[in-house]
Every structure is written in C-alpha cells, then in structure tokens.
C-alpha cells in the first residue's frame, strides 16, 4: 500500500514537473502577450533635446497607428509603447531604462537618441539583454565594439570626414588642398576631426583645426584662424545656424574656401546664410524629399494625417522624420519575420538577417552578424541657395577607410 502511494506521489510530481517546464517553455517573452507587444522608449520631453523628443514621440505615435490600423497588427498582435522622460540626463535615463525594463516590462526599447543618455545605459543593455532599436547617438561606442542588443542608425561624422578627403582627392582632383576642420568641442565634433585626419593621413595631407564651444553662435575667431592657416577646403561639424554664421564670418574677412558640412547641416537653416551657402558640399545618408521616393510620399502622408500638413512638410520632415521612420519600417519587417513565436533573441536575429531592405527612397539601412552600424552609404550633396535645397552630386558610396577599435565587418 505504501509503495502504491509512493508511486502515485512520484507520478503526480513528475506530471507537475513536466507541466511546469512545458508551461515555462510556452510562456511568452517579456512584454509580449497574445494580443499585444509592448515597447518602451525614453525621450527628452523637458530638457535641452525636447525638440527631438517631440519628433520621436510623434514618429512612434504614427508608427503605432500605421501598424495597428493599416497593417492590422503584427501576427495578430497590436503594438503599444510607453514613454519615459529622461530630460537628457544620464541618471534619469538609467532610471527610465530600469523603469521600462523592470516595472513596465517592455519587450524592447525603440527610437532613442543622445550620446550621454545612451552611453549611461550601455552596460545595462548588455546585462538585461534587451534589444534597443535604434539609437541615433553620435558616439562610436554605440556600434564599436558591437553590442548584440544595441543597434545604431544615424550618420557618422568619422565617415563624413573620410568621405570629404576621398571626394576632394578622387572626384574634385584638387592638388595640394589645405584642409581645415571647424568643429563643436564635443564627441560629435571630435569624431569629425578624427575622420578628416584619417582621410588626410591616407592621402598624405595635413589638417588644421579649430574648435568652438557648444552653444557658441559666432565663429569669427575660428574663421580668422582658418584663414591665417590658408585653409582651402574646410569641413564643418555642428548645427546649421552656426554653419550659416561661419559662412557669413568667412565672407566678412574675405576667406573663400570650399565648405563641406556634415549631415546635420543638411537643414533649411543653412540658408540663413543666403547665397553664401550656394555651391558648398554636404554629406547625407538619407533620401531627399524632392526625389519623391515612394517611401517619402507614404511617410509624409502618414505624418500629415497625424500631425498636420505643415508639421510634416516643415523642418521636421527634412532630416529627423526619415531618420526615425526608416528604422521603424525596418523593425516592422523584422517583427513580421519573427513569426508568432516572438522572442528578444529572435528579433535580434531577424534584424541581423534582413538584407537589401527597401525603404522606398528614405535611406539605406542594413545590419548583419556583429554589425550594429546601420548606416554605411552616403551621398555628397551640393547646396543650391536659389532653390533652397540640396542636390546629390554622387551616387551612394562608402568611406574608403574602415576605422574602429577592432576590425569590424562591413555591410556589402
């Protein structure tokens, strides 16, 4: 009798044990229920980058509406998201990250930006193994060395700097150019200087440089210095209004170099310099609105429906909108590729495996095994001050130098 009871007890235990493990196996991933996928995002809603926070929040709202209403969800699940305010502060970013992961229990973090906030959570991303897709921070540590769960999509000033020298030497065929770099004195500007120096080293050229403080509005001293050094081709890394000021100051002192603005200068505010902006070059990784790619037309319509025609066609649409929207399209594709059995690991694999993604002319985006840098291709644009627009003068191309702390694989 005792043996029978023992056997019965053992059988019950085995059934319970097997059921437990089976339940554990079919249990959905964190943030994924049978009818919803919950994403998280931290945005600067009240700090110095609040203008970006507004645009990213808008992009997320448009994406949610598009996926849930136009696509009918992803494999029967609607998408939803939670936004936390990080005020562009590292501590608040870490707090927001912890809250999103442990309190809201989101599946992934999407559409974030900022070198300082994102750097503050690098180690947490590794530890929590939560996909962050994408960050638009400027620092190289976002993609090099690659972190499995962190995907970067922005423009790189190192790339822009290298491409400037490539373009000068190989396309414009300038003999003995005197290179200069005027840059904002932070990691963003320093990466531009690094890029130009890398390019200059390759072609045996020298570089003069002049930094300015973040927040400076007048670059008279920098222009004087560059003129004194006899700079003929000057790379500029910083915001468009300051770039416009540099053009004006250069004109005032009779310094007439060819300027190369980084991707941030592809901004209507560059035309604050009027005709002085005409003919100078810029580097850009996104499609242009005037090219009227199908992706652009669709994106404009979606944003106009949500935010109004004026906002969608204003400065928001110039650079930020495609920069945020293209990764969201890419993410949608990856989520669909994962199938119904969605996990974080599967999503990372899916993001890695998408090749030749068609964004409809918004811009190229591609990752791969161990590749977390989503931007590889750029075009050189030339500014037309009369039409107040930028026009490509080259096809899509990559910088000629692969930089980084270790050998990084590149997308084909």
């Amino acid at each position, binding site marked *: 009798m005792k043996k029978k009871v023992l056997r019965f007890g053992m059988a019950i235990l085995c059934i319970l044990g097997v059921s437990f493990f089976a339940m554990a196996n079919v249990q959905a991933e964190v943030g994924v229920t049978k009818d919803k996928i919950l994403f998280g995002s931290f945005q600067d809603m*009240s700090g110095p980058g609040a203008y970006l926070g507004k645009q990213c*929040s808008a992009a997320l709202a448009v994406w949610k509406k598009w996926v849930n209403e136009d696509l009918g969800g992803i494999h029967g699940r609607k998408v939803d998201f939670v936004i936390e*305010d990080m005020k562009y502060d*590292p*501590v608040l970013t870490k707090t927001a990250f912890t809250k999103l992961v442990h309190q809201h229990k989101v599946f992934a973090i999407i559409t974030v930006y900022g070198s300082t906030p994102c*750097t503050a959570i690098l180690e*947490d991303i590794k530890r929590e193994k939560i996909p962050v897709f994408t960050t638009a921070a400027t620092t190289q540590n976002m993609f090099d060395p690659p972190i499995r769960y962190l995907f970067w999509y922005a423009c790189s000033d190192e790339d822009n700097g290298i491409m400037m020298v490539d373009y000068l030497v190989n396309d414009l065929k300038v003999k003995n150019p005197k290179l200069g770099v005027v840059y904002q004195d932070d990691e963003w500007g320093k990466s531009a200087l690094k890029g130009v120096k890398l390019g200059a080293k390759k072609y045996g050229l020298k570089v003069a440089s002049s930094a300015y403080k973040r927040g400076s509005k007048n670059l008279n001293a920098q222009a004087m210095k560059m003129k004194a050094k006899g700079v003929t081709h000057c790379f500029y890394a910083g915001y468009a209004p300051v770039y416009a000021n540099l053009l004006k100051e250069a004109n005032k002192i009779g310094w007439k170099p060819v300027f190369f603005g980084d991707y941030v200068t592809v901004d209507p505010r560059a035309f604050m310099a009027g005709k002085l902006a005409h003919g100078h070059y810029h580097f850009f990784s996104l499609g242009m609105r005037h090219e009227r790619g199908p992706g652009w037309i669709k994106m404009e319509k979606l944003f106009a429906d949500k935010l109004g025609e004026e906002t969608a066609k204003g400065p928001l649409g110039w650079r930020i909108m495609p920069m945020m929207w293209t990764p969201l399209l890419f993410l949608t594709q990856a989520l669909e590729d994962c199938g119904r059995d969605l996990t974080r690991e599967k999503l990372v694999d899916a993001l890695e495996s998408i090749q030749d993604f068609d964004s409809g002319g918004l811009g190229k985006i591609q990752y791969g095994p161990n590749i977390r840098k989503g931007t590889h291709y750029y075009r050189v644009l030339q500014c037309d001050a009369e039409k107040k627009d930028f026009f490509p003068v080259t096809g899509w191309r990559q910088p000629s130098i692969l930089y980084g702390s270790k050998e990084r694989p590149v997308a084909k």
Partner: protein
Amino acid sequence: MAVTRFCVRTYEQDLRIFPSLAARISLIIFGLVLLGLPFFVGKYVVFVACVCGVSVISALGLNILTGYTGLISLGHAAFMGIGAYTAAILSSKAGFPFVAALPLAGLMAAAIGAVVGVPTLRLKGLYLVVTTLAFQFITEHVIYHWESLTLSDRGIILPSPALLGYKLDTYESFYYVILFFAVAAAMFTKNLAMSRTGRAFVAVRDRDIAAEIIGIHLAKYKILAFVISSFIAGLAGALYAYLMGLIGPDHFTFNQSILYIAMIIVGGLGTVFGSVIGAVFMVLLPEVISAVTGPIASAYPTFSPRVGAISVIVYGLVIIGFLLFEPDGLFGIWIKIKRYWKPWPFTY
C-alpha cells in the same frame, strides 16, 4: 523617563541623538522597513532607493559646509565627480578593489577640498559662491578634456564591486552598501553637529568675527568644513559611480550642484533630518511627476513636450513654494507637525 527635545532636564539628555523613546522606536521601525525594502519592491524601486541613498550622503556633506558652516558652495557636484573618477580610474585601470577605491576616492576629494577651501579664508558670501562655481567649471573642463585619463564622453566603465568575495552586482545587494554609508554619514553628521567642532562651525556661520573673538580658529574650521564636506561628497561620488556602472562628464555638471543646494534648502538647512528628507524629496519628485505625466505622454505623444514642460514648471513651483512659504524646509514642517500634536488632545 522618556523625554523629548522640548523638555530636556539635563545636558546628558540634551546630548542624546534620539532623546525620546518614541523617536527610538520610530527609528527602529523605519530601519526595519529600509532593511526589508528590496524583498517587497521591484528592481526599479530599489534602484530609485539607491539614488536616494547616494543623494542623502552627498546632501549631508553639503549641509556640513553650507548648512552648518555657512559656506555656500556651487561646486559640490565637482567634488562628487572627483570621487567618482578616482574610484573609476583606480578600479578599472589600476584594479583596486571596491574597499580600497572607496576611501581613496573620499581622500582625493578631501585633499582637493582642502585646496579649494583656502580661498574661503579671504572670501565669503557671493565671492565664495563665484569661486566654487569656477571650481565646478574647471573640474568639468578637466574631466571633459583630459581624455587619456577620463575617456571624455565615452565614459569609464567600472567593474562590479565586490565585498569579501561577494559580488555586489545587483541593485538589491548594492542597496545595502549604500544604506550602510547613508546611515553612517547621518550618524557622523549628527554627532559632528553636537561636538565642539560642529558648534564651532555654527559659530563661524552665525558671526565669524565673534567666533574668532571667543577663540575659534577660523582658518582651521573653514578648511576643515571643506575637507569633511568634500570627503563625504567624494564617497558619495564613488558609490554613485559603482551604482551607475559607467560615468561620464555629464554626470557631474553645474545643474547637479544646484540640485544638491535645492535638496538642503527644501529639506532644511543645518539639520540632518532636513538633508535626508530633502534629498529623498528631490529625487522622488520627478518620479512622482513622471508617474502622473508618463501615461499622458504615452497616450498622447504629440503633447509630450507640453507634458514635459508642465513637469518642469511643477518642479520649479515646488521649490519656489518652499522658499516663500516654508523657509525652514521640510524639517520646519515636521517640527510644526510635532508641535501641533505634542499637547494633543489639548489645544495648547
């Protein structure tokens, strides 16, 4: 017989840190709640509690300097930064263990505090404020531009702290370390305030010339206040660095210094209780605002910047409100509540 601070009969009773039985019992209950906190709340709350703890330690340090000694400093975040970077560099580059890096971080900040304290011998009031402000900006500049040492914007990653072979790599485990130091800092400050040194600090604050006349060595006590304050700030900075796991130049900005000043003003200048409650209040206030505005921002993302602006306005209004209506801060409110209930059920 249990007594309160309002009806002490002997010096011995007056010198007790917790004079009444009720205070001691409340403290024991509060201590038990703090000890049990990680078992009842999620990781997020534990992390916020850790940030509160570090802020309490740092605010206590600033209160010694500003609240007790009357030397206003706008460079407190810089001292924290020095402590944080010392711990980060020692642990990540030189392989120092947590137990060694922590006191060295405090000592480094204290040494620099002694140097910064020297101008206080000739400066006070707004002139001292400007001096400490300059120190704040110099420190920020050095952290940012001494790239070979601080790695500038990239930040320094710290190894997980370990104590007696036990890795403190979770917020829950590190919470107890922070709690220990917060309690130790509070006890130390309370004792210091009641000691000869503390009373000398107060004398310097209230009237330095009179203090000198009665035999207080102004130079010694002013510099000592800087040294003690910066040591505690350095310690808080090191704990903060280990908590964050990675530190960068933007962690120790002028805004942070202002925040610590706000903590001790809102809490109540020159009181330990005020520093503790002020720090907790200022850390939790954005969290409370975010708990209200967060769902609104998520539901209506296009309004999120306005929601964010409202949260900043509320934050500012709370501070202005304290300055206008309760200059003694939260400590003042606490005392008023205690006085109101003391004769209860009688009206007076």
